[in-house]
């Protein structure tokens, strides 16, 4: 068994990037995720794997550097926290429109505005409903541990390239800052120039050869019919992702009558809530969406007939609960419990809130 190292979630992201053959990281410091770039600079991967690491002048530049790198068929990424990700919304929309793969890590903090540097899940809407302008989706993974932070980097790149979509790891300050034991995977070498060409020559700016005309990466289509066709094409791709890429976990749902839906750090806290409810004789279970897009709609839907109620537990004022309500569609009551400003509820607090409802 591989050695386990005690590191922060943010450090796990940086190490995973090097280990999975990432070509470039472009970032701008912001709490609570600055350790990602700090770790990369300390590790100097440009001397080992040849990975480029660059501190940009702003989040706007970071995401546009990622755009440039992605145009070349490279595995490129950035990381930031909520206010910085708002600045990246323009770039993400462009990349979704131009069908470019990339990875953005958002270690969420409380908002709106400059908000707080404490953990939050307040960017759920921004992340899964778009964030930037236009009709688009990203592949969104919500880690709940240091190991998830490490493993999801490789996973995100895999899916991003499979569908040519931007991918996001939507973590929060807890997952980014918490130190946990993380098991490292075997090193994947960076793709060679030949491999990049073999994989991406049909669309990427890898240099025009004699065998083809110049490739153009653009999200511009002034002809209404062309733009509509492009939108339909994008939606078909997202539908395929909903078919094939849903990830989720359940906990004690077999005979559950009451279901908690929670992602990220709240899914771990709510496991204890479920245990405490079970000790009191209440048949409670938990479903944790691992991918927030695609959302485990079918899986929640399948549980609804056995349930008496659902509660969505989030570190915000109620965002994912809207998606859960849509799935329940009036068949069972859907409650919400959340804290904001960086306050993390205890398992008991969640249980008490749920008991008040039922």
């Amino acid at each position, binding site marked *: 068994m591989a050695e386990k190292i005690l590191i922060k979630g943010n450090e796990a992201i940086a190490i995973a990037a090097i280990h999975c053959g990432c*070509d*470039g990281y*472009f970032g701008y410091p912001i709490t609570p995720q600055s350790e990602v770039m700090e770790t990369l600079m300390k590790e100097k991967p440009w001397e080992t794997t040849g990975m*480029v690491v*660059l501190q*940009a*002048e*702003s989040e*706007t*530049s*970071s995401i*546009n*550097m*990622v*755009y*440039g*790198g992605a*145009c*070349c068929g*490279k595995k*490129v990424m950035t990381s930031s926290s909520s206010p910085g990700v708002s600045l990246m919304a*323009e*770039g993400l929309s*462009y990349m979704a429109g*131009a069908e470019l793969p990339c990875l953005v890590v958002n270690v969420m903090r409380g908002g709106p505005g400059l908000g707080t540097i404490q953990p939050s899940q307040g960017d759920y809407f921004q992340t899964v409903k778009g964030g930037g302008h236009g009709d688009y989706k990203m592949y969104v993974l919500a880690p709940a541990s240091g190991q998830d932070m490490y493993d999801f980097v490789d996973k995100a790149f895999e899916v991003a390239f499979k569908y040519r979509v931007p991918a996001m790891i939507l973590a929060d300050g807890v997952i980014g800052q918490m130190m946990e034991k993380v098991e490292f995977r075997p090193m994947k070498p960076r793709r060679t120039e030949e491999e990049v060409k073999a994989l991406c020559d049909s669309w*990427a*700016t*890898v*240099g*025009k*050869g*004699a065998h083809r*005309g*110049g*490739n*153009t*990466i*653009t*999200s*511009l289509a002034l002809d209404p019919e062309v733009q509509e066709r492009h939108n339909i094409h994008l939606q078909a791709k997202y539908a395929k992702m909903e078919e094939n890429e849903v990830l989720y976990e359940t906990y004690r749902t077999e005979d559950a009558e009451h279901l908690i839906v929670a992602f990220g750090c709240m899914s771990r806290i709510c496991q204890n809530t479920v245990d405490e409810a079970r000790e009191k004789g209440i048949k409670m279970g938990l479903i944790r969406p691992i991918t927030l897009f695609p959302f485990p709609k079918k899986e929640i839907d399948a549980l609804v007939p056995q349930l008496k109620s659902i509660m969505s537990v989030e570190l915000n004022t109620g965002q994912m609960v809207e998606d859960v309500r849509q799935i329940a569609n009036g068949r069972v009551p859907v409650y919400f419990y959340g804290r904001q400003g960086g306050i993390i509820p205890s398992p008991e607090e969640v249980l008490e809130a749920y008991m008040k409802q039922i």
Partner: protein
Amino acid sequence: MDIKDIIKPENKVYGRTPVLKDNVMHYCPGCSHGTVHKLIAEVIEEMGIQDKTIGISPVGCSVFAYNYLDIDWQQAAHGRAPALATATKRLNPDKYVFTYQGDGDLASIGCAEIMHACSRGENIVVIFINNAIYGMTGGQMAPTTLLGMVTATTPYGRDPKLNGFPLKITELIAQLEGTCYVTRQSVQNPASARKAKKAIRKAFENSAMGKGTSFVEIVATCNSGWKMSPVKANKWMEENMFPFYPLGDMKDR
């Protein structure tokens, strides 16, 4: 003498570079973009770097530069071309990477990106078209619009109290340690176009030598936006633009 005796390879004095695609340009008659596109295409052909050149097009009239030069292109968001170019060049050091940007794109919304790319000394080429107006959106004030100049958003002429002063961004760029070659050129007649082409070629050669950022400003006309005939626009440029934006090299090292 028969015409066939004249049309021979050895008598050829001019040809259209194959780097230019066979597409009809959307630019207005008299616009400087077409000339600058041709010069870049010729430099790419002469240096034999068509398969190694990646262009970054801006937002503005020249967003469609990718329709005219047969190379690989990235189309950037407004002002962000230097950020795309930075990553593209760093991830592909053997490629020639250039941005093509107008005055609104480069000197207004993209100020941070161009300043920092030049300050870092990215080994890229920047072609900066300064026609002192926003062309594509219909002739609004640009950062480089001259004082007194009438535009759609300065209908009574640019007034420094209301609208601030025109920005000599190329002079600022020349102060940055990362730039190796900063020059201001024009293309309104064959002599100036030849000089501009030499400057563009030098910029691409600098890139191969890893000397830092090369920045070529072209003072240009937008006769549609200026509401002048092409001939009058050229004359107006010489009389009004050149005194404020003097031509020549600002830095060459």
